């Protein structure tokens, strides 16, 4: 985990209602998830506790807890995520992709306006460099396969950010229909 640079900040967005994929697993349940199409998962033991609030580069996130269906991340499928109405400059995400990828999000504002911006996310796959200027948030030392734990594979969850250039109250974010992109957590940063 990257240490906090200053006092943590940010408005945490609750994504739990949108979770639709299980990307983390405990060793004893490594066959229960499927972050990618090969059914690999991140080792939950090496990541923050469910529901905890790790601070990454000064930004506070809420690390996902499994919902009642066992999902712990959002695989992008065009979801409309409501956010606490307010002025923000950046949308930070903890995210990872099945091969690095980019797509449009639509930012919806209280006055009825909507702008498209880019969401760009690096690959979770081990031995793969980050892209788009994203920062490594969590690097694990093993990768879970359904029937074994692979010791020399180190998957990564990244921190990326989306700008909010319009100086107006943001109300919602429409995510892309791109199942290669997974989001674990989202935090909004205001102009202060």
């Amino acid at each position, binding site marked *: 985990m990257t240490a906090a640079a200053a006092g943590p900040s940010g408005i945490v967005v609750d994504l739990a209602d949108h979770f639709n994929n299980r990307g983390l697993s405990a060793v004893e349940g490594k066959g229960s998830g499927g972050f990618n199409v090969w059914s690999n998962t991140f080792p939950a033991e090496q990541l923050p506790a469910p529901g905890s609030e790790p601070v990454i580069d000064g930004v506070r996130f809420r690390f996902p807890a499994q919902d009642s269906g066992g999902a712990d991340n959002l695989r992008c*499928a065009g979801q409309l995520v409501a956010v606490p109405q307010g002025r923000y400059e950046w949308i930070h995400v903890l995210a990872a992709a099945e*091969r690095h990828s980019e*797509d449009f999000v639509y930012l919806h504002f209280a006055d009825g306006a909507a702008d498209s911006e880019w969401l760009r996310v690096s690959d979770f796959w081990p031995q793969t460099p980050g892209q788009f200027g994203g920062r490594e948030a969590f690097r694990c030392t093993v990768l879970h396969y359904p*029937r074994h734990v692979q010791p020399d594979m180190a998957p990564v969850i990244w921190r990326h950010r989306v700008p909010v250039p319009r100086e107006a109250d943001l109300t919602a974010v429409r995510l892309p229909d791109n*199942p290669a992109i997974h989001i674990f957590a989202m935090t909004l940063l205001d102009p202060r």
Partner: protein
Amino acid sequence: MKTVLAGVHPWRHDLAGCLHACAATLLRFHGIPPLDALGSAWSFYYPPDDYRQEEYYFPCSPGRSLLSALAPYHPVRSQWYQPADAAAGWEQVRARIAAGQPAAVAVDNFYLPFRPAYHDVHANHLIVVYGFDDEAGTARVLDSVPPRFNGDIALTDLTAARDSSNPAEGDRDMFFADQRIGNRWLAAEADSSEPPGRDRVRDHLRRNVSGFAAAVPHQGMAGLRGFLGGMEERLAAGEQVSDELFVVAGTALAVTALHADWLMLGGRAYGEPAWTELGRQVKRIAHHWTAIRIMAALTRSGEVPVGRLRHRHRALLHDQECVLADMAEVS
């Protein structure tokens, strides 16, 4: 006898797979810059039902070798060999290496101790063999795909991996199983190529634009449109298209991503910001292919219905038409 060839180096692009990794290693061995060879051409060609469940599948037009299809603007060629049995398979590869040339060999990951699939699942893969030690009973292999491995393995393991029937078992690695390995191996040949240059970049851009416009069956924009439309029609009719679309999208993703990087490298090398920007536009097309590849896999369970796929296809085709129009102006 014991030998390890010099000049064999790992190479990997994160939007490509083992085929481009092996091809790059072999090209570099022959003194050809990998990205220039593998990234200068941008095209689409795929005749329906041509795909095979191999991680190293690549559609080749009639009469064209695999390496020539990957690097059509360079004087390179390759030949697949299919030995009669495992003994002949090693004899041929050993002779190739003893003569000073590395070989790419098809393997089943199930039998390779350094692969995550070892004794877990079967998957058709490609690695480079470039040395051996008869007395120790080992072969020197290079696999640039994570977890990267560059070292000696027991010849018995390599032989088992090459001689595997690669059966489809269970519900994992569904894309690259059920295709016999058959001890196949690939030999690459290359002549000396022209050095890269500004005029050559422009010439390649013109040829790429022209290729996409050509009215050749299964090729260019018309071929791409036909392929994607065909996938939609078959999915709507209830057919499984996940394997074919996943494999073909993987090849298109690799070709497109490498071309994007080649353009951006050219932009930097020759002080042409317009090429860099064009490369970034092409990278956007690669990202469409990434989405399509995963969508393809998710059509299997019904998670991605034809409407979602069609929407993505439409976006890719639109963006690619725009890129090609800009490319025509720049070249």
